């Protein structure tokens, strides 16, 4: 294993002494080592591995990297330290008593994420998987107050997911007789789907995604940033792992298309109506995972219909989107962290006019918003552009059966894309523009430099590949080759990326010209916003968050599960008018919550165990794994 990992281990020591600064420094150091290593793997060496022989029943554990894991590795190695850095300052903003354990678990989480990529042995993989879930759970438990329930639900959901994985791995083991990942090739349908579902829990795909919007708002900004931009990717990594080494029938691909479409659509509907800033971002994670998934589907479809171009574009798009999402999503979460620190609330109806009070964050967030709604000049556009191109290759397919899914994805993608744009314009407008809707927003002010720097870095990372897509394309190129996709068309894509850059050049030049001309020509004067000459305008005279989506809500009603309360009392004249509505996640309300309640009630029987001492938690986690081990072996 690499020196990078070692450094990260060492980083845990300052964590125990609450020295978050050293902790961060070590993280940056270690990550840079790791990043170098991953890059090396990605570009030069095919794989780098060594076998670690352990006592049975574990047997020989191969620790190796392949292009795929290296790809994700790079994402983590670049993303995590930024998150840690932001966290360092965020914790200064929001001091907590349990700093020690928080830092510790933060470190453990990052570590386990990295280790996952190296391990190619299902048992050990599971162990780290569990460790990751546990540690992230403790990271989510930030402030003692509100988030107990959400955190616990999160843990339980993760355990259920893990259960699927365990079952799947176990069956795979029975089938192939080895714990090594090589045993996953050409596996039976049942175990494969069990594993896929298991990963789907982490990846945040529709029926299993309800934990995301619940856990994120309560977690501190840096944790939710790391979780939804990177932790979630581990799930996707697992899925790709399976997909890359198993063939699929057209029917199955169609099914995947359906799942991802539904997942993204479900997310975007909530995205439109949600009023909690962080929850919005959480939903959009689900949506973006869905889009990436659709890219993968396109790729598979291309392979199916042997349209090499389509396959290449599909996978390229998917990888690009995963990569870019980890950038702009982190950026947005950190921005939301800043907004929370400045206003002390996450309800967008409490905000407004922040652009005047925190101009810096406003500009950064604008970039993030543009990226997440895939507008040109940002990286988000490049990935969606590629996926769209893949879809437009579909008409060349020989068979209706191969063509239909392609077109379906096309329509869905376009629809989702448009809705997302609307949703985020709405969010941005309400949060940053207009006039302040509450005293909190009135008194908001810009935050310390340390909280802005990471966002600036990420914004740069959004714009650079956005305007010069070739950078990003070079990054995924080896991966594409590794997947054995059509390099000829890839070269063409790179050429096109160049063209796009030129188009952008034209766009920017034109913009600059018009803007400057205006500057030179026009004499500006300031006046009150035109409100029909009514001199006493109040901030309440601007649309509330529901106004923006009402025309759409009229259409998406069936997909929006909301509780609304309308009061109108009048004698001769009105005496009271009130309205309030909440958009809820049906899955969460109807299934997850009751179930997890039941489980936690069951767990209360062991309340003695649940003594809040972290080490005992680990003990139980490990014990759980031992039992699992015994069970698996016994099975054999």
């Amino acid at each position, binding site marked *: 294993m690499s020196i990078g990992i070692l450094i990260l281990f060492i980083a845990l020591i300052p964590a125990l002494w609450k020295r978050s600064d050293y902790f961060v420094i070590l993280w940056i150091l270690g990550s840079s080592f790791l990043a170098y290593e991953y890059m090396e793997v990605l570009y030069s060496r095919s794989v780098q591995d060594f076998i670690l022989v352990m006592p049975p029943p574990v047997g020989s554990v191969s620790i190796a990297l392949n292009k795929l894991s290296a790809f994700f590795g790079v994402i983590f190695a670049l993303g995590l330290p930024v998150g840690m850095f932001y966290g360092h300052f965020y914790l200064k903003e929001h001091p907590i008593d349990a700093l020690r354990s928080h830092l510790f678990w933060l470190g453990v989480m990052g570590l386990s994420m990295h280790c996952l990529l190296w391990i190619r042995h299902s048992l050990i993989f599971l162990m780290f998987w569990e460790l990751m879930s546990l540690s992230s759970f403790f990271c989510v438990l930030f402030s003692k107050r509100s988030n107990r329930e959400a955190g616990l639900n999160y843990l339980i959901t993760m355990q259920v997911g893990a259960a699927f994985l365990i079952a799947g791995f176990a069956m795979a083991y029975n089938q192939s007789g080895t714990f090594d990942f090589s045993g996953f090739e050409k596996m039976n349908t049942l175990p494969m789907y069990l594993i896929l579902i298991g990963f789907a829990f982490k990846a945040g795909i529709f029926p299993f995604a309800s934990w995301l919007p619940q856990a994120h708002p309560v977690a501190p900004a840096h944790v939710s940033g790391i979780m939804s931009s990177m932790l979630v990717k581990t799930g996707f990594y697992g899925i790709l792992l399976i997909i890359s080494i198993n063939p699929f029938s057209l029917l199955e691909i169609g099914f995947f298309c359906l799942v991802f479409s539904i997942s993204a659509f479900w997310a975007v509907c909530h995205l439109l109506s949600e009023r909690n800033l962080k929850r919005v971002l959480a939903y959009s994670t689900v949506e973006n995972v869905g889009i990436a998934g659709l890219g993968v589907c396109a790729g598979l479809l291309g392979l199916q219909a042997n349209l090499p171009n389509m396959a290449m574009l599909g996978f390229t798009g998917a990888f690009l989107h995963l990569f870019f999402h980890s950038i702009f999503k982190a950026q947005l979460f950190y921005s939301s962290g800043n907004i929370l620190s400045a206003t002390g609330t996450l309800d967008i109806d409490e905000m407004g006019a922040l652009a005047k009070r925190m101009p810096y964050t406003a500009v950064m967030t604008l970039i993030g918003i543009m990226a997440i709604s895939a*507008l040109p000049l940002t990286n988000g556009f490049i990935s969606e552009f590629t996926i*769209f191109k893949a879809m437009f290759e579909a008409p060349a397919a020989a068979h209706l059966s191969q063509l239909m899914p392609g077109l379906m994805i096309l329509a869905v993608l376009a629809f989702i894309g448009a809705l997302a744009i609307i949703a985020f314009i709405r969010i941005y407008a309400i949060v940053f523009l207009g006039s302040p809707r509450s005293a909190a927003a009135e008194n908001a002010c810009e935050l310390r430099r340390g909280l802005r720097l990471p966002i600036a870095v990420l914004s740069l990372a959004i714009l650079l590949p956005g305007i010069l897509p070739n950078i990003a394309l070079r990054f995924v190129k080896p991966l594409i080759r590794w997947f054995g996709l059509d390099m000829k068309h890839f070269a063409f894509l790179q050429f096109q990326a160049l063209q796009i850059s030129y188009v952008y050049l034209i766009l920017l030049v034109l913009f600059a010209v018009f803007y400057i001309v205006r500057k030179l020509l026009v004499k500006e004067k300031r006046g009150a916003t035109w409100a029909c000459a009514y001199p006493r305008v109040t901030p309440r005279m601007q649309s509330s968050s529901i106004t*923006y989506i009402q025309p759409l809500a009229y259409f998406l009603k069936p997909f929006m599960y909301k509780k609304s309360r309308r009061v109108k009392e009048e004698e001769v004249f009105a005496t009271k008018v009130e309205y309030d509505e909440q958009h809820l996640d049906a899955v969460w309300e109807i299934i997850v919550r009751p179930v997890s309640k039941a489980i936690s009630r069951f767990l209360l029987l062991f309340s003695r165990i649940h003594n809040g001492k972290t080490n005992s938690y680990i003990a139980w986690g490990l014990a759980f794994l031992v039992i699992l081990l015994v069970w698996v072996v016994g099975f054999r």
Partner: protein
Amino acid sequence: MINILSIIFFPLLFMGIIHRVKAIMVGRKGKSLWQNQRDFFKLLQKDEVLSQSATIISRMAPALSLAATITAALFVPFLSTKAVLSFRGDFILVMYLFTLSKGIMALAAMDSGSSFQGMGTSRELSFTAFLEPAFFLIIAALILSVGAGSLSAIFALQNVVSAGIWNVFASLFIAIALYIILLVESCRVPFDDPATHLELTMIHEVMVLDYSGFSLAVIHYTGALKIFIYASLISHLIIPPYSSAVWYLLVLAIVYIFTGVLESLMARFRMNRNLELVLVPLSIAMLTLTILLVLNTGVW
């Protein structure tokens, strides 16, 4: 080159046609054909009053939106069938450039924090949700039938008189769908009334309520250009491939005249019914697509 010229000169001129037609229809003297240019140049020479709550966004929005629309226009065939720029799949970029220009204007509108503009924005944005898929499906359908890769090529090749009765239907349907998109995008009757004088019922107008002078001129021009783009696409869809510019101008004029006639004979819809109508192009596109699928992949 000739296309760039038409981008510069035609949009406002053709808007004039609509005014003339409406005037003639209702029997009034009406505005001159050149009125739009006159207003444009007048506005260029005026100062601006910006809202106190306005941020940098309001300032840059018109310029950016115009830049984006012009860039998009470079991919579109106008007088000459050969677009200035074109590459395989450029229509995606074009569509997203439109979205960019609309998105930034939406932000700018809400920048002023007036409740009218909030309403207008939500109304206009909700249309896009259904227009984008429609547009993409239309393109997909066209690709199916002509197999070309870039916007200009597609619309140059596809046409009514090409072989096969189905193709005729297809391109007619698509023309209709595109025309509805035109009406929506340019916010004309029956979706919106550019002549209305009531903040509460405006859609596009109310978004620019706070703009003046130069910026306003730019916005007007951008709107005109957008209509012009769609109209040109329609006209290229109708006329035979690589036919003379005369044909193109003829059909183009017809499209505008028809708009004028329609506006004189139709009342606008109730606001919450607009969306239902925006679904029409989507469904038409799907219909056409199925027709072409049946046609090209020859199932049953």
